[in-house]
C-alpha cells in the first residue's frame, strides 16, 4: 500500500517495549512522541486492529512521558487478544488523543481514585498530575484476583496512597473496591473513577452517600471514537454542562434526559449527572 499522508491525530507508532505482569494483562510501550506530548489525563486513543478485521479499539492512555506512551491491555475478546500479541518493533496505528479527560481542577486537593481492573489505565496520568499539582491522592484498586492487581507500585512511586481489594480475597479487602473505600473511612473531597459500568454505578451511589462528587470515566463500546456515529451514548441530565445541544423532544417521548456521546462529550462525566 502506498504511504499515506496522515492528518494531525492519526499516528503510526512503533512498539518499543512490552511486558506481561499477569496472564492476559499486557502493557505495550510505544514510540509516539506527539501523543505523549499532547495527552491530557483521562484521554484515550483508538487503536487500529493490525489485521484490519474489526473496528478499532478504544484504549486509555496509560503512561505518557518523553516520546513514549503505553497502553494497558486486558484480553477480553478478539481485538484485545490481537493487540496483546504485538511485539517490540511492530507498528500500530493510533488515532488520538481523543475525548475530554478528567476535570482535574474540579477534583480539588484530596482525591480518591477508584480503579476497577483495566480502569487503572485511565488513572495513572490523573494521579501523577494531581500529585504534581500538590493534591493528596489515594488509590482504591480492585481486581478479580491478586495477580491481576498490577502496577500499584507506579502509583505509590508517584506519591499516592494505595488500598487494594480482590473479588476472591487473595489480596487486600475481600470484595468490592467501593466497600473498601466506605470501610477505610478516609475522607476525600472528590472521587475520580474508571472501571466497568456496574462498579461506576456503585461509585455513584457511594459518592451520594458520602456527600462528595465523583467523576467517572466510562468504558462502553465505541465505533468511531470521534462523535460521528452516536453509537456510544449514555443518558445525561439536560442541565449538565456536558449535555449536547438538543431541542425539546416530540410529544409522546417520556425520556426527559439527553443522550451524550461517551467518546465526545466524555468519556468522563460527573456521576450525579448521569441517568443510568
Amino acid at each position, binding site marked *: 500500500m502506498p504511504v499515506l499522508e496522515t492528518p494531525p491525530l492519526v499516528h503510526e507508532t512503533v512498539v518499543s517495549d512490552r511486558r506481561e505482569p499477569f496472564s492476559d494483562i499486557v502493557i505495550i510501550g510505544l514510540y509516539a512522541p506527539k501523543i505523549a506530548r499532547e495527552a491530557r489525563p483521562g484521554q484515550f486513543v483508538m487503536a487500529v486492529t493490525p489485521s484490519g478485521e474489526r473496528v478499532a479499539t478504544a484504549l486509555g492512555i496509560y503512561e505518557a512521558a518523553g516520546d513514549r506512551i503505553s497502553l494497558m491491555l486486558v484480553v477480553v475478546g478478539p481485538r484485545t487478544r490481537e493487540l496483546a500479541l504485538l511485539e517490540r518493533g511492530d507498528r500500530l496505528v493510533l488515532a488520538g488523543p481523543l475525548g475530554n479527560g478528567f476535570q482535574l481542577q474540579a477534583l480539588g486537593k484530596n482525591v480518591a481514585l477508584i480503579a476497577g481492573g483495566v480502569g487503572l489505565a485511565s488513572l495513572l496520568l490523573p494521579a501523577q498530575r494531581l500529585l504534581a499539582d500538590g493534591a493528596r491522592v489515594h488509590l482504591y484498586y480492585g481486581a478479580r484476583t491478586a495477580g491481576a492487581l498490577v502496577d500499584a507500585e507506579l502509583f505509590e512511586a508517584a506519591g499516592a496512597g494505595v488500598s487494594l481489594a480482590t473479588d476472591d480475597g487473595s489480596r487486600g479487602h475481600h470484595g468490592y473496591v467501593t466497600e473498601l473505600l466506605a470501610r477505610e473511612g478516609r475522607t476525600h473531597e472528590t472521587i475520580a473513577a474508571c472501571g466497568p459500568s456496574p462498579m461506576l454505578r456503585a461509585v455513584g451511589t457511594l459518592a451520594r452517600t458520602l456527600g462528595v462528587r465523583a467523576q467517572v470515566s466510562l468504558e462502553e463500546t465505541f465505533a468511531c471514537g470521534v462523535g460521528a456515529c452516536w453509537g456510544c451514548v449514555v443518558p445525561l441530565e439536560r442541565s449538565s454542562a456536558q449535555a449536547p445541544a438538543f431541542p425539546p423532544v416530540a410529544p409522546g417521548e417520556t425520556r426527559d434526559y439527553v*443522550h451524550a456521546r461517551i467518546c465526545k462529550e466524555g468519556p468522563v462525566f460527573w456521576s450525579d449527572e448521569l441517568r443510568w
Partner: protein
Amino acid sequence: MVTKAAEPDISARLGGLRLSVPTLMGSGCYGSGEEYASLVDLAQLGGVVLKSVTRLPRLGNDAPRLVPVASGLLNAIGLQNPGIESYLASDVAKFADRPCAVVGSVAGFSVDDYAFVTERLAARDEIDAIELNISCPNVGAEGETFACDPDLAERATRAARAATAKPLIVKLSPNVTDIAAIARVVEAAGADALAVINTVRGMAIDVDRVKPKLANVSGGLSGAAIRPIAVLAVWEVARAVRIPIVGQGGIETARDALEFVLAGATAVSIGTGNFTDPRVPLAVASGIRTYLAERGIATLAEIVGSANPGFRGAR
C-alpha cells in the same frame, strides 16, 4: 524526458452531482464530516452523506447501540437527530465550508414526512444533494416499510422528487426478496441515483446474561460481513436500471470498492470502514487511481459495470 502519464480521472457523476473522488462517507457513520476533520483531510473525500434527519426530534434508542461482531458491526442508533427545524437553525450553516460534497439524508415515517423534510433541507445552499433513507432498520416496523414495499417506495420517491430539483439519491434496503424490482419503481418515480445497500438486519445474544446484546434487540449489520450481499445487490440493480448506483457495504480497500464498480456502481460509499481505520477512504481513492493507471485506463467511468454483462447504465 519521459512525460508522466496523466493521473486517471476518478471523478463520478450522480445525476447533477459531480464528485471529484468517487467516495461518499456513509450516512450516520461520519457525522457532518467535522467530527472526522482532525483525522482525515476532508478535501480528499468525494463527499459526506449527513446523518439522517427526520421531521421531529428523536432521542434514538437506548444504549447499548453497538455490538462489534466478526468482520463487522451491529448498530441500532434509532435515528437520533434534532429534527429538521432545529437542524436548519443550528447545524446546516456549519456545512458551508466543507471542502467536499455535502449530501443531506432524509428519513421519515410517512410520505408527507419525506416531502416536507426534503423540501426544507434541499432549499439550503449548503446541501448539494439529497439522499432518501427509506431503509432504516432500527426504528420499529415503520422505518423500513418504505424500502420493502414497492408502492410506498414509489410514493416516497415521487414526493421527494416533487420537493426538490437537486440530485436525489434513494437508499435501498437489502432486506427484500427482489431489490431490482424496488429499484425499477424508484427509478421510474424520478430518482437520480440509488444507494445500494443499507444495513442487513441482524442480532446478537449475550449467552452469559441470556439476553439480546442490543437494547433495541435487533440492529443493522454493516462492514465486511455484508460485502458479498451488497455486491450482488449492486449487480442485480445494475441490470435493472439506467441511473447511477452508489455501491456500499463493507468497503475497506480499493479492491473492495472496485468489486462494486465492476458490478455496476458509479461511486461508492464508506461507512464502517472508517471505524476500522480512518485512512480507509484515502487508501480507496489512491488504490483506484493505481489500478487504473496500471492498466492504462483513463477514467473510472470506463470500467463501471464491466464485469456485469447485463449492465444497463450509461458509462
